[in-house]
């Protein structure tokens, strides 16, 4: 059975490599650091969820928080996502900054009504904001099967009033979780479980929050624009050298925030390269790629030298068995085939 890491190309999952200042920190530790530092900074911040206390969370993202901040601010809840999210909404409406953990992001489906009908619409209807974060492990690649591998971003990107963040690097996991906690609106924060222990950055503890809504140009190029986010950033970076060899120099954009996504950076890049390819792990139909393609074809039509292509998962649930999951997940091969076709225009 193939090691998913190999299956995903075994690239070096870091942008800051071995050198430079700061401490080498995994994506998972970056999440924990952000929670720790925000709870230190602001006593209104607290975490709640299943097994987040003594156990430190199913993935250990909240480990050590109970010891430092005590049971009132690190709340083990019953097995009830609607209670977790509902309590977070109410606490946020009364001035606190709750961070609710979904043990796996798949279970956010149980709180869909409260998120889309209560949290998302509250400011618009009543003027009362709901500054909360719902975070959890998202995405596939670890053979979790149909219920521990989902990418639910579009259910929330689709819902006015919510923000959606999906970091691809350890540095962003920390800085954008901080920014999400400080944001005045409800944020769905998608941590990619495949990256938890696979990606690292050298981070300086205590560094400040980032800014939501800004994409990062991970690689500058002139031949074609690849727009992606989450774990697929690493697939794009893995494919880049091969494209370079073909004389196609890709510009790789990491969206980081999915709602509101950084239209300006995407349009600027596409106007430069004239070609746009979107890569995401989410299934194809009505994925974020659709919104980006629609926006580009609406606002950058005159600059396009070729069709806008999407490289995505097929429209199926996430299968469990390794060969099936590998067939489900877009990879560098698929991306190269698409990029080469697009380059021919």
């Amino acid at each position, binding site marked *: 059975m193939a090691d998913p890491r190999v299956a995903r190309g075994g690239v070096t999952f870091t942008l800051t490599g071995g050198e430079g200042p700061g401490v080498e920190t995994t994506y998972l530790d970056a999440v924990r650091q952000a929670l720790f530092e925000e709870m230190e900074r602001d006593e209104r911040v*607290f975490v709640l969820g299943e097994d987040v206390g003594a156990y430190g969370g199913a993935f250990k993202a909240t480990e050590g928080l109970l010891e430092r901040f005590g049971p*009132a*601010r690190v709340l083990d*809840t*019953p097995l*009830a*996502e*609607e*209670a977790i*999210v*509902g*309590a*977070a*909404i*109410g*606490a*946020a*409406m*009364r*001035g*606190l900054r*709750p961070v609710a953990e979904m043990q796996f992001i798949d279970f956010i489906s149980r709180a869909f*009504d*409260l998120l889309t*009908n*209560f949290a998302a*619409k509250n*400011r*618009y*209807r*009543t*003027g*009362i*904001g709901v500054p909360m974060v719902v975070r959890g492990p998202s995405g596939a690649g670890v053979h979790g099967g149909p219920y521990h591998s989902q990418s639910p971003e579009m259910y929330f990107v689709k819902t*006015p*009033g919510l*923000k959606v963040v999906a970091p691809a690097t350890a540095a962003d996991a920390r800085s954008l979780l901080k920014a999400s906690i400080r*944001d*005045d*609106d409800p944020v769905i924060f998608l941590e990619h479980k495949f990256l938890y222990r696979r990606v690292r950055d050298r981070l300086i503890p205590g560094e400040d929050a980032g800014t939501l*809504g800004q994409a990062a140009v991970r690689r500058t190029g002139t031949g074609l624009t690849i727009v992606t986010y989450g774990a697929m950033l690493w697939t794009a970076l893995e494919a880049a050298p091969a494209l370079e060899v073909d004389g196609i120099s890709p510009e790789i954009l990491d969206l980081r925030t999915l709602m*509101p996504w950084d*239209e300006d950076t995407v349009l600027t890049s596409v106007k430069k390269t004239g070609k746009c390819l979107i890569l995401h792990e989410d299934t194809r139909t009505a994925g974020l790629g659709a919104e980006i393609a629609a926006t580009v074809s*609406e*606002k950058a039509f005159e600059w396009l030298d070729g069709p806008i292509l999407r490289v995505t998962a097929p429209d199926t649930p996430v299968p469990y068995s390794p060969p099936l999951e590998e067939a489900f997940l877009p990879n560098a091969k698929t991306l190269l085939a698409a990029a080469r076709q697009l380059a021919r225009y």
Partner: protein
Amino acid sequence: MTTSLPTERLEDLYRTMLLNRLLEERLVNLYRQGKVVGGLYRSLGQEATSVATAFALEPGDLLAPLIRNLGSVLARGIPARDVLTQYLARATSPSRGKDANLHFSVPEKGVYSPIAMLGTLVPVVSGMLLAERMKGNSVVGMTYLGDGGTSVGAFHEGINFAAVQKLPLVLVIEFNGWAYSTPFEKQSAVRTLADKAIGYGIRGEVVDGNDALAVYEVARAAVDRARAGGGPTLLECKTYRMKGHAEHDAQAYVDPKELEEWRRQDPLARLAKVLTESGVLTPAGLRAAHEEIERRLDADVAFAEASPFPDPSLAFRGVYADDGIAERARRGIFTGGL
């Protein structure tokens, strides 16, 4: 008459229930004139349940009504004109026309809007109370749920969470016999909804929901217990929905005899009787109250009818703290009715 309420509070209780009823009559007129935007959800016959429970709260406590709890928000000091402007969808309403009827919040008064999805307030109000406890405040929260609403999963998850956390929550179950056209025997196999408290390890109470003084006493005990750290109470008020689900519903499915029996249990008439018999109010006092309220309502209705509709541009504002986000989705783009 046994009550722990002092005389002036008793008068106030009666006036608020009367205001509930007279304001609703104004709304009915406006509805018949086609001036109410959307549906009108009556509370006729349920005034004691709404008003007397809310009366048990202290300043600084929280209340989240459902759309039939007109009396509850009046008891918390929401002016009649706010309700009128809401139903008329005017710019002067608390929601500025963005949402309907009792879907509005006034945090300064501790009043929070429901959403249509029944049961969802239970976990949300629990979270509010959790926050207040973390802030070190001794705040009690009260919210409502109908016999039908108790079937919703959000109620279950919320009340269980409140029970485990021993939160100071008073959940008033308004048993009025119907969920739209659905009779209770199709809603649940239990006799008494307060029995659900046993399954959550919390206190359950049942009271005649049309006896304002009785409702007040149980509600007061539940509020005091909650504040003292005794945890949540399921407080079931047995009452009856005297009108259809909404004004458009002729309630053809209701046995007129049953309605007739309950008409004799009218909570306002019952309270007037005990208060006059016990000398708290005189027949003249009742009339005076009635006239004064009607006079005020004349002004409130006039104000509401004279109020402008909101400016269309408001439709695009307030989705996020940063209005730029929703605006950006419109910039140079064809959305809405221009």
